[in-house]
C-alpha cells in the first residue's frame, strides 16, 4: 500500500489507482486498497466466487441481506429495461437508451444513497430512477414524447435525466456545494458515461468539486462506448479513475459488473462525502449490451464476439451464482423476485395502454414564472386554431353523416 508525502509534508495514504497524487483524500472513511493497479477492484469474480479478502483492497463483502437486496433490485430493473426495449421495438416509444448489462452500476448507485440524497442521472439511467421509486409511467413520459421530463424531482430527489453530456455533473456539484453552505448532510451522486468525461463540463465539475470540497460522488459508467466510439478513441490514460489525480480527489477503478464491489466502493465514497471528505470519482468498468438506442446499429462498429464475451460476465448471473453457492438464495425467494419483476413488467405494459392526453396549451404555461402577455396571445391563438379545426372536423363528420 503506497505511502507518499504531499507537499505539506503530511503522509497521505492513497486510494485506488490515484495513489500518490491524492492529497484531499480523507482516509478515515475510505478503506485502503492494496491490489496492484490496474486490475479493477472485485469482490465477487466472474465465476461468482468471493475474492480473497487480501485481494479485495480492504473492502468487505456487503452483508447477505444487502447482497440479496441488490440482487432483487437488479433482476427487477432488468425486467423493466427489457420490457421497455421491447415496447420501443414495437414503436410505442420515441426512444429508449437501455442499461442492459449495467445493472450493477445503476443499482449500486441508488442503493448507496439515503432518501435525502440527490441523484443526477442521464438518459441512460432509467432503471436507477425506477429503483429509487419513480413510477414507470413517470419515467416513460419523456421517452413517449409526452413532455421533456415527467417525474417529481423534489419527492424523489432526482434531477431530470440529462441529455447534454456532462452538464448534469456541474448541477450535482452546485447542489452539493449548496448543501455544504447550508450545513446539511445531503450527498449528491451523478452518473456519467465514459464518453461524457471528454467534455469540458466534466473537467469543470471535477475541478469545482475538488476545490470546493463538495459532498458529491461522480460515478462514471464506463460501458466502453460513446455510441460507436470505443474508449481508446476517447482517452489515452489507463483508466477513467486516473483522471481523479489531476483534481486531487480519490479515484476508484472498479469492476462495474460486480455489484458487491460497486456497492462497497460507492457507499464508501458517499460516506466520505457526507463526512466532509469531499468528492470522489468512481469508475465502473462495464459494457453496453444493447444498441446505444433503438435507432442505433452496433453491428457497424463492434464484434458480436465482444458482446458474447461480456454476456459471460453478466452482473446478475454472477451474483446469483454466488448467492446460490452460499445458500443465500432460496427457490421461494427467486420465485418471489420473479413475480415482482413480472408484475412490474405487466404494470409497465399496462401504463402504456393509457395515453396521457396533454393539453397543447400547457406549452405556454411553464416557460416563465412571470406571466408574459405575448405568450398569452400565442396561447389564445393556438386555442382558437384548435377550436376552429375541431369545428371544421365536426361539420365534415356532420356532412358525411
Amino acid at each position, binding site marked *: 500500500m503506497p505511502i507518499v508525502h504531499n507537499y505539506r509534508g503530511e503522509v497521505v495514504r492513497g486510494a485506488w489507482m490515484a495513489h500518490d497524487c491524492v492529497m484531499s483524500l480523507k482516509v478515515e472513511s475510505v478503506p485502503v486498497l492494496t491490489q496492484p493497479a490496474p486490475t479493477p477492484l472485485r469482490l465477487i469474480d466472474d465465476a461468482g466466487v468471493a475474492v480473497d479478502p487480501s485481494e479485495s483492497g480492504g473492502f468487505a463483502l456487503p452483508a447477505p441481506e444487502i447482497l440479496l437486496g441488490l440482487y432483487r433490485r437488479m433482476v427487477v430493473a432488468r425486467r423493466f429495461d427489457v420490457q421497455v426495449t421491447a415496447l420501443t421495438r414495437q414503436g410505442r416509444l420515441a426512444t429508449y437508451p437501455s442499461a442492459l448489462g449495467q445493472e450493477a452500476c445503476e443499482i449500486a448507485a441508488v442503493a448507496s444513497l439515503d432518501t435525502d440524497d440527490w441523484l443526477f442521472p442521464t438518459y441512460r439511467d432509467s432503471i436507477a430512477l425506477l429503483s429509487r421509486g419513480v413510477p414507470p409511467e413517470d419515467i416513460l413520459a419523456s421517452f413517449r414524447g409526452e*413532455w*421533456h*421530463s*415527467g417525474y*417529481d*424531482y*423534489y*419527492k424523489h*430527489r432526482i*434531477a*431530470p435525466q440529462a441529455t*447534454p453530456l456532462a*452538464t448534469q*455533473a*456541474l*448541477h*450535482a*456539484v*452546485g*447542489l*452539493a*456545494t*449548496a*448543501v455544504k*453552505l*447550508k450545513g*446539511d448532510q*445531503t450527498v*449528491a451522486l451523478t452518473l456519467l458515461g465514459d464518453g461524457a468525461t471528454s467534455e*469540458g*463540463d466534466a473537467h*469543470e*465539475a471535477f*475541478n*469545482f468539486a475538488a*476545490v470546493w470540497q463538495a459532498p458529491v460522488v461522480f460515478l462514471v459508467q464506463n460501458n466502453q462506448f460513446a455510441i460507436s466510439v470505443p474508449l481508446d478513441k476517447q482517452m489515452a490514460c489507463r483508466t477513467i479513475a486516473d483522471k481523479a489525480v489531476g483534481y486531487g480527489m480519490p479515484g476508484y477503478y472498479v469492476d462495474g459488473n460486480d455489484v458487491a464491489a460497486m456497492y462497497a466502493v460507492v457507499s464508501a465514497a458517499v460516506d466520505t462525502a457526507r463526512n466532509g471528505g469531499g468528492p470522489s470519482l468512481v469508475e465502473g468498468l462495464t459494457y453496453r449490451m444493447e444498441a446505444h438506442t433503438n435507432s442505433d446499429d452496433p453491428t457497424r462498429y463492434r464484434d458480436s464476439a465482444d458482446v458474447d464475451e461480456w454476456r459471460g460476465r453478466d452482473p446478475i448471473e454472477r451474483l446469483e451464482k454466488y448467492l446460490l453457492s452460499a445458500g443465500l438464495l432460496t427457490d421461494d425467494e427467486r420465485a418471489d423476485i420473479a413475480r415482482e419483476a413480472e408484475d412490474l413488467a405487466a404494470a409497465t405494459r399496462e401504463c402504456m395502454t393509457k395515453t396521457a392526453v396533454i393539453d397543447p396549451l*400547457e406549452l405556454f*404555461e*411553464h*416557460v*416563465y*414564472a*412571470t406571466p*408574459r*402577455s*405575448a405568450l398569452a396571445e400565442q396561447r389564445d391563438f393556438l386555442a382558437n386554431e384548435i377550436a376552429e379545426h375541431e369545428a371544421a372536423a365536426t361539420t365534415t363528420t356532420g356532412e358525411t353523416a
Partner: protein
Amino acid sequence: MTAQQSTTQGSSARDNAEAAPAPRPAAPMTMAAALNAAIHDAMMDDPSVVLFGEDVGPLGGVFRVTDGLYAEFGETRVSDSPLAESGIIGTAIGMAIYGLRPVVEMQFDAFSYPAFEQIVSHVAKMRNRTRGKIQLPIVVRIPYAGDIGGVEHHSDSSEAYWAATPGLTVVTPSNPADAYSMLREAIASDDPVIFMEPKSRYWSKAELALPVQTAPMNKAVVIREGSDVTLIAYGPTVKTALATAELAVEEGLSVEVIDLRSLSPFDDETVSASLRKTSRAAVIHEAAQFGGYGAEVVARLTERNFYYLAAPILRITGFDIPYPSPKLEEFFLPTPDRILAALGTWEWS
C-alpha cells in the same frame, strides 16, 4: 432541505425583497456603486442569495461592482470560483435547485460564451422541462458593450443571443437608479435573468436615496417626451438617444426617447403607444445590425402598427463586422450626428 422548502423556493425570498431596508440619505452614486448596493441589500434581506464568479471576492470584481461584499459576507456567501464560465453557470443551477438564489458574474460578455450551453440548454429550459416543478432564480450579470477602449473580446454586445432564447428574461439598466431597482427585482425574481450592464455607464452618476424603486423591470419607459419621432434605445445608447434629442431641437425636431430596459419581454404597449403618436421611429444599439436585437424591434412594431407608420422604422446600429479595436471604435458606434442624418433620410412630407 425538504421537498416542502424546495418547492416553495424563492417565494420567501420575494417577500424578503419587499421588506426593504429603511431609506438612506440621498447621495451621488455611480451605476457600479448602485449595483453593489443592490447586491448588498439583497444579501442582507435574503440569506439564500449567494454571489460567486471570477475575481468577485477580495478584488471586488474587475469593475469593483462587488467591492466589499466578500469582506462583509465572507467566503460562504461570496466566493471566487475556479476560472470556468460553464462551471459557474452549471453550479449555479445546482445551487438554485437546492433553494439558493445565485448571483453570478461573467467577467465580460465574450466570456459568457463558454457557458452558452448551460445557459441555453438548462437555465432557459429547466422550468419548462419540469412543468414548473424546478425553477432557477439565477441572475447572470454580464458587463456588455463597448466605448471603453477595450481590446478584442471586451466590447461585445451579446443581447441578441439571449433575447432569442425562450425561457430567459433579459434586462439592461441605463442609469444608477434603474441599476439598483432592476437588480433587486432580478434577484427577487423566480425566473432566471440575464442582467446586462453597460460598461461605459458604470461610472455615470446620479443622486440616489436607497432603496430606490423605479418602474418594474419588464417595462419600457418614455424618458423624454416628443411628437415627431420616437428613438428606441437601451443600455449604453440611451445617453446617445438623449443627446440626439437635444441636438434635434435646433433642427426643430421634437424627439421622444424610450429606454427599453427590458429586452425580453418586450414592452409592446409602451413602445407602440409612442409610435402611434409620432408615427416614426428608429431603434439604436451598438451591436451589429444583421440579426441584431433591433430587427425584432422593427419587425414586431411594424407588424403591430403598420398602418400608423409614416415611414419605415430605421435601425441605427453598429456595422455588420466584429467590434473594432479601440482606435477605430468611434467609427463603429452610433453617434447623435449619425442618428440625425438617418432621420434626415426619411421623406418628411
